[in-house]
């Protein structure tokens, strides 16, 4: 790892180095678009064919938690952008503060995700042998984290959905496969992003970033914004299908 804005051997000027690094990150993000795009395509096609099961799946997700997480990530993008601004304007102390806030918000996101995933586990909604979309209807005592009203609404939706789709369980499992696939992939990218942020934090505490050279902050910022944008797509795709008033 080179130190404060030294020129790497293959570059001639700092400008060329910065332009190169930036272009590299943008092209990498394009590959990420194609990567997520594939699974989003599979999801979209299946949602069209198995609309009832997917709507059912969507309605078992918590709008509050998902919405909260969306706000959290948007805020973290803001703090990240502030970190980049601080680096560009030479406010070294602020870089550290904003990076820390971004990491904190990232962890809040993880926390909420953990709560959501744990709930799915308890409700037998993890794809596999034990997957059962009817679990909470058939075992209401085991799903006591849901309010009675929520449970009643869910059961009503279940009844409608299973009348429309006799294979509801199999198709709902497809929904959950996509749910875990997409949010899992997204979470993995966030973990990597968090790792990068910790590294940036360490470097910023050591005072490495200056207005003349702050490329890593810039590029990690790009990456973090991209991960945020992916969530902006995932949230309506997964959480907002056919939502009735909750």
């Amino acid at each position, binding site marked *: 790892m080179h130190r404060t804005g030294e020129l790497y*051997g*293959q*570059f*001639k000027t700092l400008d*060329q180095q910065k*332009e*190169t690094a930036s*272009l*590299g990150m943008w*092209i*990498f993000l*394009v*590959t*990420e678009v*194609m*990567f*997520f*795009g*594939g*699974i989003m*395509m*599979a999801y979209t*096609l*299946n949602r069209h*064919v*198995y609309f009832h099961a997917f709507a059912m799946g969507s309605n078992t997700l918590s709008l509050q938690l998902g919405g909260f997480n969306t706000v959290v990530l948007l805020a973290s993008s803001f703090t990240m952008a502030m970190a980049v601004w601080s680096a560009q304007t030479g406010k070294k102390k602020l870089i550290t503060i904003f990076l820390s806030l971004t990491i904190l918000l990232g962890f809040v996101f993880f926390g909420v995700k953990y709560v959501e995933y744990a709930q799915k586990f308890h409700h037998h909604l993890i*794809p*596999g*042998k034990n997957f059962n979309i009817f679990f909470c209807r058939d075992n209401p005592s085991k799903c006591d984290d849901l309010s009675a009203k929520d449970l009643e609404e869910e059961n009503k939706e279940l009844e409608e959905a299973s009348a429309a789709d006799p*294979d509801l369980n*199999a*198709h709902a*499992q*497809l929904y959950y*496969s*996509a749910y875990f*696939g997409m949010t899992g992939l997204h979470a993995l990218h966030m973990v990597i992003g968090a790792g990068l942020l910790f590294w940036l934090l360490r470097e910023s505490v050591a005072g490495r970033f200056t207005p003349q050279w702050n490329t890593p902050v810039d590029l990690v910022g790009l990456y973090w914004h991209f991960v945020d944008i992916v969530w902006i797509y995932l949230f309506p795709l997964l959480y907002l299908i056919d939502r009735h008033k909750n």
Partner: protein
Amino acid sequence: MDAQSTHATGPGLQLPEKSYLNETTGIRSWLLTVDHKRIALLYLVSVTFFFFVGGFFAMMIRLHLLTPSGYMLSPDTYNRMFTMHGVTMVFFFLIPSIPAILGNFLIPLMVGAKDLAFPKINLLSWYIYIIGGAFTLYSMISGGLDTGWTFYTPFSTVYSNSAVAPAVIGVFITGFSSILTGLNFLVTVHTMRAPGMTWFRLPIFVWSHYATSIVMILGTPVIAITLGLAAMERLFGLGFFNPAMGGDPILFQHLFWFYSHPAVYIMILPSMGVISELIPTFARKKIFGYEFVAAASLAIAVIGFLVWAHHMFLTGQSTYAAIAFSFLTFLVAVPSAIKTFAWVATLFGGSISFDTPMLYAFGFLGLFLVGGLTGLFLGALGLDIHIHDTYFVVAHFHYIMVGGAVMGYLGGLHFWWPKITGRLYPEWMARIAALILFVGFNLTFFPQFVLGYLGMPRRYHVYPPEFQVYNVMSTAGASILAIGYLAPMVYLTWAAFYGKVAGNNPWPATGLEWTTASPPPTENFHVTPVVTWEAYDFHNRPELELDVPRAPTLAPAHGDD
């Protein structure tokens, strides 16, 4: 520019004292190198290894098919042979070969840079390739893979009794090597060109790799996620592609081919780039229609993304979709035609010599022509009904992949061997090997066109006896072909240590890479080059010591640069 004489070869020449090969020594200096030239050699060794692994499987296939009744291998074993032949050759030989070896070595030299944009990422891409290869090799030795390299579901995800998951994971991992290589090339061409090296002075080799890199970065992530989902289905029973769980096998095919069709352009574009260097060099004439050739390379990359479902004409898809994809398939043939005619036109008015690289270029012209033209048969809907999934397809893609891509690869290896090693290969042995390869290749694969139209399906471990004659011809050709492959492996290796010293520019050729020493110093150029000449300009380069111009045969209208 180095003081050494340019293209004269002879007893007076000496290897440079220090070059990228010996500036640092020891195994760590190779395994932890960030020098693009050393990384190219790391790839050369590993890619050659996988080429022979794939070749071994090919030998098994052809030996077994000598008789109609399957005397040699059990059905399951045969199915593993053709599958692993395909997986190895496609993902571990054809996709990396020219870009990761010649592209890595030459692109910084050709644009006048000290290295690629991201040298460490370059090394990482090699390690990723090795790790992916290791997973796939593990799959092969732990029972093998029998799904076909196309992994169609639900056979691969539910029914196959072979080591599907490690193989799929191995290919998944190796895909990232491809992505990183493409990323490196794109950025390098954009930001690392030497002063005076404008876009339209770049060698066509660079344009071809630029187009290839676009395909690599846009297409490869899609196969990554597709194989990821397939692995999930195999390991955890998810159901996207399994009809018993509401999934759709055709969805897998769409996602798979969305990458795998552009992938064939990853395999052929670099080879076309090599040919675009060989023909001007050995005809000593600028390539005909430079801008058209460059544009055609990009056109192939773009249109190549729009034709994938021509692999699926008979899945029951909508007739309208089939018509659209067929039309686009015919469109994508046109840029290749433009390039082929450009190469031929370059010869007219040139000063042609028949060194080995030029023989490979001629071989390419003929074989790629046949391969590309036979694509017209397959793209025509009415014909595809009959020849889809028969040996016609097998013959078609081997003509392009072996007759096209491998010819370009070998021609390029021979052409740049002096630059890479500092030494010349034995010319006459090489010419004979090239001819043997050409003869063996045609005898192997031409009969397969006939077999296909007669109706012999692919991936058959036994076949009706009336097909035996052509199968025997094909196997006979394969044994000749094998000699054509083994010979260069032997004499190129020998030449690297004991060949005649080459000098900077033995041919001579006009690229920037030939202005520096052979082998080059680690930093490529002692002094940053400043480019003032056009690509393939044999006339304004006195240092090439070429002095006898041929009078123009056509009126010098356009293109007099």
